[in-house]
């Protein structure tokens, strides 16, 4: 988990780079498509990671509640 969380920051940084590239607006269409696809992939990967972290947090909250 820690390793993949570390990965999150990396992926998020890559995503920011993609956004910057897209915002600059001088990409070729092929590059635009490539960057867009790459961006969406990164968004999905990041969201998946957040989902799994959220599930884990919910589980911990549940465990703490049950042990009362």
């Amino acid at each position, binding site marked *: 988990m820690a390793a993949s969380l570390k990965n999150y920051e990396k992926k998020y940084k890559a995503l920011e780079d993609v956004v910057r590239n897209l915002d600059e607006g001088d990409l070729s269409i092929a590059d635009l498509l490539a960057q*867009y696809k790459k961006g969406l992939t990164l*968004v999905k990967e990041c969201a998946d990671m957040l989902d799994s972290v*959220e599930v884990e*947090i919910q589980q911990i909250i549940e465990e703490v509640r049950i042990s009362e």
Partner: protein
Amino acid sequence: MNVLSITQLNNLIKRTLDREYLLKNLYISGTIMNAKRHNSGHVYFSLKDEESSIDVTMWSSTVMSKGLSNSIENGLLVTIKGSVNFYNKMGRLHIVASDMQIGSKSPLQLEFDALKQELTALGYFDESHKQMIPVLSSCIGIVTSPSGAVLHDILHISEHRNPLMKFKLFSVPVQGTNAGPIIAKGIERADKDPDVDVIIVGRGGGSMEDLWCFNDRKVVEAIYHAKTPIISAVGHETDYTLADYAADMRGATPSHAAEISVLPITTLQEDLQKKEEYLHYVINQILQQKRGELSTLFNRKLGIPALQLIHKQKSLLQTIKDGMHRVSMHRMEQEKHKLSLLAKELSLQNPVHMMTKGYSKIEHNGVTVHSVNQLDTGNTISFTLADGTVSADVKTIKKHKPLYQNKR
């Protein structure tokens, strides 16, 4: 065999006693003990001499008419007039007194009162000085006579309650002129004995003279100064000695003293179990409360903020995703727009389109004519229009400046 019911028996006794004139209108002399005044105004007491006692009742009407309301007191030497009466419902015999002559207190009673007053003033009977009797002792020191009833009664009671209890006898005489100081020494010995947890000091019932050694100042002092808790057990329930007042606790009888100092082992076990259960209950209550607090703290300070962080990050990702989509779509719109402009421009430059506007393609000998320099007068040229070709001869040629400079 003639079987009587209780009622028949009691009625028989009552009839027999009522017939006996010797038991009517007697004058009886004795010391008042155990006087009790009921709410009804009737007064009940015992008349006692050295050996015996009898119950006496004085009805409230007699108490009032003889003006005795405030004068019936324990220890008073009195002569009463009364008749023996049998209360057949309870099977109890008593004397109903119709008059009372109050004599002076007995000399012993006067001495007792004086010593009690003095020792009270000195603080020997202060409640604040009294110690708790331990719930569980391992060894009880008994200061009494080895031949008396006390030892037997105590051993008998404790045998059933706690067979593990140990006893040490501190043998003393419990009657006689010199007994007091020896009893005091016995108490001191018991107090110094490291094994002894509780001391019982006492003797069985007897007359005031018999019990007198327990009113000895030395006994009171020994009890007062002892570090070990002391239970007194002197005489019967109605007998009070100064030792009783000085003791940490008074046993009404030696048996009662044993009951106080030797709790049944089962009671102790039950008590221990109840305490253990209570302890568990309390600990669980505290734990549950702490868990609740921890859980609340965890949720408020960690759980909820963590989820909020995740949600914030998620909405950031959504914003980024939307942004990327918008930028890309915008860019695609731009490209499409540029493309459509180019397409339009392209279509504008289509020769057929030009021909519909009135322009035509001029050829001479199969070569496209770009300049007047390619032609001479008389040359035959062909015009291609959108819907056909026209041949024409060149009549005149007039040259002027080019309309626009060809970039190529």
